[in-house]
């Protein structure tokens, strides 16, 4: 499905408006991302960053315009096909509360494979899903003794790294992250970003990272900015 010349993510004239609102929350004329590209999306709170990610994840459907992921037009898929598509090809990291409190660290990571046999296959290529999860966690500086710990005992920084492991297991083509560093202090934030880039590059994922924090932009090759109201694409650098 993935071909080199075709962009992994492609948006054209995408508009999204919440029912009852006067203006579009998201309005993007054109956006194309190739395999392995990292995009930083900056926008103030309320500018529609999360809404954009919901559109990319196929949780919401645009009011108009076209979103293609890996060459597939999401509009041609039924809701449950979009859910399946998300399970197979996407990894998601939230701002916080990424983990299920009743599962161990390791179970939270392997949970990603629960709804995707594709991810299960890809994660279990040589050593099995659990072993893959363990090595991912280790690569993200999470020691063995944390793997079976209840997630409530983990610090916020550790929890966010577990979320990255969960997003990356099974090597999805696309990873979307919704302000994953906003709950971290500056030191933690920088270490987190380094680890995130390291693993995303190792798996050659396409990364879309949204944040209100302009300081992060310089760590990305590409970045765009969302306007406060109307969501018009402002500039690309």
């Amino acid at each position, binding site marked *: 499905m993935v071909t080199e010349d075709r962009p992994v993510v492609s948006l054209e004239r995408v508009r999204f408006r919440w029912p009852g609102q006067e203006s579009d929350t998201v309005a993007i004329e054109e956006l194309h991302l190739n395999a392995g590209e990292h995009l930083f999306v900056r926008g103030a709170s309320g500018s529609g960053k*999360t*809404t954009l*990610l*919901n559109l990319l*994840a196929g*949780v*919401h459907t645009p009011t108009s315009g076209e979103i293609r992921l890996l060459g597939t037009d999401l509009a041609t898929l039924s*809701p*449950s096909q979009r*859910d*399946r598509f*998300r*399970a*197979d090809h*996407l990894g*998601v990291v*939230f*701002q916080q*509360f*990424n*983990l*299920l*409190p*009743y*599962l161990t660290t390791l*179970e939270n990571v*392997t*949970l*990603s*494979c*629960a*709804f*995707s046999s594709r991810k299960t296959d890809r994660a279990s290529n040589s050593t099995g899903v659990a072993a893959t999860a363990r090595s991912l966690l280790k690569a993200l500086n999470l020691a063995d003794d944390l793997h079976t710990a209840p997630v409530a005992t983990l610090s916020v920084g550790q929890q966010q790294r577990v979320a990255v492991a*969960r997003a990356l297991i099974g090597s999805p083509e696309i990873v979307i992250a*919704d302000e994953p560093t906003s709950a971290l202090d500056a030191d933690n934030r920088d270490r987190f970003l380094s680890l995130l880039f390291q693993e995303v590059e190792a798996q050659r994922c396409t990364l879309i990272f949204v944040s209100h924090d302009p300081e992060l932009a310089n760590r990305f090759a590409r970045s765009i900015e969302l306007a406060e109201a109307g969501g018009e694409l402002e500039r690309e650098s």
Partner: protein
Amino acid sequence: MNLLRIALKSARFRRTSLLLTVFSIAISVTLLLGVDKVRKETKTSFLNTVSQTDLIVGARSGPTNLLLYSVFRIGNATNNVTWETYETIAAQDEIAWTVPISLGDSHRGFRVMGTTTDYFDYYRYGDKRPLAFDVGQQFDEVYDTVLGADVASSLGYEVGDEVILSHGLVSADFADHDDKPFTVVGILDRTGTPVDRTVHVSLAGIEAIHIDWQGGGRSGVTLDAEQALKFDLTPTSITAFMVGLENRALTFRVQREVNDYQGEPMSAIIPGATLADFWRTISAVEQVLFVISGFVLVAGLLGMLTTILSTLNERRREIAVLRAIGARAAHVVLLIVLETLLVVVAGCIVGVAMLYGLLAIGRPIVTRRFGVDLAMSWLDPTQLLIMAGVIVGAVLVGLIPGFVAYRRSIQDGLDVRI
């Protein structure tokens, strides 16, 4: 990790709020099954108040009336059966045994029944159980009496005690047969039937205490206990008699012969059939009980619905995470339905455990007080059906929060705002 394991772990994590719901379902299940159990055992016990007796014969009357006075000692016979007729019928070839009974007197609220020692040999109740003696033995002398278990326990009688019978059914000093006291020679084991509330004496004893009576009062001459023994104490009439046949297939034929008997008007009833008819008229109460426990179940299910709906709020993030990793609508609904299923299955298991626990504790008490044996048997098909109904009901109820959770997850998307 499949959805069932997720549902299990999630439910275990929130067990405190769910345990209460499990308990309320358990109570409904215990109640429903308990009512069903008691209903069935009561019915069995009622229908077996008399067993192995093929016919009961008395003066012509309605079947229920005959049943009531001969078996339950309730009400009165309008007429008697003469001793000659009794002997004629008892002598027929088809008839294996007969037990005559003679009613009309009482002792401090308990009915007195004159009969023969055949009564102790042939009378059966419950599952063909014969009468057994707690202490003492059958009556032998004219002034001997054998007491039912309730009579002895509530009046505090022991073997060797003296008992004064009263004429008629109300105790009044002027109507006491105090000139001819009886001696307790035996006390029966508890049966859970009207036998427990009966004072048994021989037919000759009944005859002896009435020898100087005419109609409702004393005649002019008085004869003391010793003098009475000198007379012929063969009764002139009895109230009714129980019949055992050589061959049960003859029941209807003998019944017809008795009903058509030329000498005097009589009725013969088949006790099992009449008991069943009678049960039908009094069993409305059990239906009401059943309906009430049904409402308790509905209340339990509604309680579960509110609990599960209220947990949805704290589960929004959990569901957003699952949606983000690709859970579909069906998964979200199923997750919630699985939780209701877990709750209700746990409720059923706890409910059944409580039922058997209560049975184990309550069985001796119920047997002693009501004579109904709540046997520790496996759940029968109706009870399994009741539980299946509870589970299906819970799944249907669980669909409601299931769809609510899915609709919310669509609204929430990947980011749950608190």
